[in-house]
C-alpha cells in the first residue's frame, strides 16, 4: 500500500472510531483495575518479607514495570483476531479481496487508526495518574524516544501475531478459541505482568527464541532504563527482524487461507 492509501485508511478509521464514545470510556477502566490488584500484591510481597530487591527489581521497579505494561497494553491491544475471524466466517473478507490492497497491511493500518484516540488521550492521562499516585519511573529523553520506536514494533508484533490467529478461521471457524489461545500465549511469553527475569531459568531459552518478549518486556525495560542506549538499539533491531519474519509468515498463511475461503453468507 502506498502512503496515500495508508493515510486515507488511517483517517477514515479514526473518524469511524470517533463515532462511538461510550466504549471508549469503558476500556479506560479495565487496564487500571488489573494494575491496582497486582500492585497491591507486589507491595505486600516486598514489605511483608522486608526485602528491597527481587531479581534486580526494587518495589518501585516492579510497580513501574506494571504501570508501563498497562501503557504498552493501551498501545498494542486490539480486537484483531475476532475482527479478522468474523470477516472470514461471515464472508465479509470478500470485500477486501476485491479491493486493490493487501488485507494484512490494510488491517494493521485500520486498527492503528482506531487505536489512536486511546493512544493519544488515555495512555498519557493514565500515565500521569500513575506517576502522581505511585511515583512511577520516567525515562530520560533518549530512552523515551527509543521506547516509542520500540512500541511501534510491539504494536506490529502483537497485531500480526493475533492476525495470524484470526486467519486460522479459514480452517476452523471458532475464532474466539484462537483469540483466547493467542492472548494466552502472549500474556504468558511476553512478560505482560511479570518481568522475564522472574521466570524459572528453564523457561528462558524458550522465551529467548520466541518473539513475544518483544511485545511487553523489551519496551518496558527500555523505558525503565534497564538497558543502555546501545543495547536498547540492539533490542529494536531484534524487534525489527521479528516483525519481518512474522509479517512474511502472516502473508504466507493469508495466501494459503484465501484458497480455502468459501465466502459464506450469499
Amino acid at each position, binding site marked *: 500500500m502506498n502512503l496515500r492509501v495508508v493515510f486515507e485508511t488511517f483517517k477514515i478509521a479514526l473518524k469511524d472510531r470517533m463515532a462511538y464514545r461510550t466504549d471508549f470510556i469503558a476500556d479506560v477502566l479495565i487496564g487500571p483495575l488489573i494494575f491496582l490488584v497486582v500492585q497491591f500484591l507486589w507491595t505486600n510481597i516486598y514489605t511483608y518479607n522486608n526485602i528491597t530487591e527481587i531479581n534486580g527489581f526494587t518495589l518501585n521497579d516492579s510497580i513501574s514495570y506494571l504501570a508501563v505494561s498497562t501503557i504498552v497494553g493501551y498501545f498494542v491491544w486490539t480486537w484483531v483476531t475476532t475482527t479478522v475471524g468474523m470477516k472470514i466466517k461471515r464472508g465479509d473478507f470478500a470485500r477486501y*479481496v476485491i479491493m486493490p490492497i493487501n488485507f494484512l497491511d490494510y488491517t494493521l493500518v485500520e486498527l492503528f487508526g482506531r487505536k489512536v484516540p486511546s493512544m493519544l488521550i488515555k495512555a498519557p492521562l493514565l500515565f500521569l495518574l500513575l506517576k502522581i499516585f505511585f511515583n512511577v519511573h520516567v525515562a530520560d529523553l533518549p530512552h523515551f524516544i527509543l521506547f516509542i520506536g520500540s512500541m511501534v514494533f510491539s504494536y506490529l508484533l502483537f497485531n500480526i501475531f493475533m492476525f495470524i490467529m484470526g486467519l486460522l478461521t479459514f480452517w476452523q471457524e471458532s475464532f474466539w478459541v484462537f483469540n483466547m489461545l493467542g492472548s494466552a500465549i502472549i500474556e504468558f511469553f511476553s512478560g505482560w505482568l511479570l518481568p522475564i527475569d522472574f521466570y524459572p531459568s528453564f523457561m528462558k531459552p524458550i522465551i529467548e527464541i520466541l518473539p513475544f518478549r518483544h511485545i511487553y518486556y523489551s519496551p518496558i525495560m527500555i523505558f525503565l532504563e534497564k538497558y543502555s542506549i546501545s543495547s536498547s538499539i540492539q533490542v529494536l533491531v531484534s524487534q525489527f527482524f521479528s516483525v519481518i519474519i512474522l509479517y512474511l509468515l502472516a502473508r504466507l498463511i493469508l495466501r494459503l487461507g484465501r484458497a480455502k475461503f468459501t465466502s459464506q453468507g450469499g
Partner: protein
Amino acid sequence: MEQPIIRVKDLSKTFRTHKRGAGFINSLKSFIKRDVFVKKAVDRISFDIKEGERVALIGQNGAGKSTTVKMLTGILKPTNGEISVLNLHPFKERTKLNKNYGVIFGQRHNLWWDVPAIDSYYLFKAMYDIRDDDFEKRLKIVRSSLGIKEYLNTPVRKLSLGERMRCELGLIFMHNPKIVFLDEPTIGVDVVGKKKITEFLLRINKRFNTTILLTSHDMKDVENICKRAIIIEGGKILFDDKIGYLKRDYIDSKTLHLKFSKPLDQKTLFGKDLERIGTSRYQIIFDNKEDIGRFLKQVLDDSSKEVLDVSIIEEDLNEIIRNIFEGKRK
C-alpha cells in the same frame, strides 16, 4: 468483433460442507466424526463475454449465480476449469485485475458504515490512484445521474437501504472500471431509484463501453439493462443468447383484450373462446402459432359489432423465465 474480455470454460465450483445434526448429542457426534457432503454449486459452465456487452445472469435461488461472480472476481478459487478476465486469472492474478473491475453484492457493503459515503469515495480515490480531475468529473456524473447528492454527506448507517445502494453503485464507477459485476444491485431500491440506476448503467455503458454482468431477480431490470441473458439452473447453463430470442422462443401465448360497445351474447367468436372480464370487455387467448392479425380483421370487418378498444398482451419475461424453470420449455 474483438477478443472476449471474460472467458470461462468448463468452470466448476464444489463446496465441501459438514452436516451437523440438531441437538447436543448430534453436535457431539459431529465433533468426533463429521459427514462431509459435496455441493456442486457451479457445474462445468462455459461462456464468453465481449467488451461493452450487457449480460444478465438469471437463475433461481441457489442456482450458482453469486458463486460464478465470486469466481470471476477472484473471491473464490475455482475447483476446475478455465477462467480468464481481461486475460488474467482472477484468483491467481487478483492484484493485477482488481483495479479494472467494480463489484457490488447487493447484500453486502463496500462503504464504511459510520462515516459519510463521501469519505469512502476519497479512500477509493487513493486506493485506485484516481487523478483529481478524473475524480471530480466522475463524481459529478455519479452524483447527478444517481441522485445521491444529498446522501453523500450523511453517515452511511443512517441511509435507507435504497439510498445506500445508490451510493454503493456510484462508488464502484469512480475508477472507471472496464467491467462491473452487479449481484442484485437493485435490492431495496424503489421504482424511481431503479429507473435512475438503469439510465445510469446504460449511460456508463454507452459512454465508456463498460461491460456489465448483472444478476437480478427483477426481470424488468434485466430487460431494461441487458441485451443478453445467461440462464443457469443447478449450476448449469440452460440458455445463453439475446433476450429478444428468449421471447421469440419461449413465449407460448398471447392474450387479446377487446372492448365492444355493448355486451355480446355469445360464448365464442370466430372459433375462439371468449372470456368475459368486464361488462363489455373480453379476453381471448392465442397460442404462438395462431394468427391474431387475421382474427382481428375478421372481428373489425363484422359490422354487427362495434369494437371500441384493442390491446394485445405478451407474456412478460417473468412468466417466460418461470415457464423455463417449471420445465415447460419447448
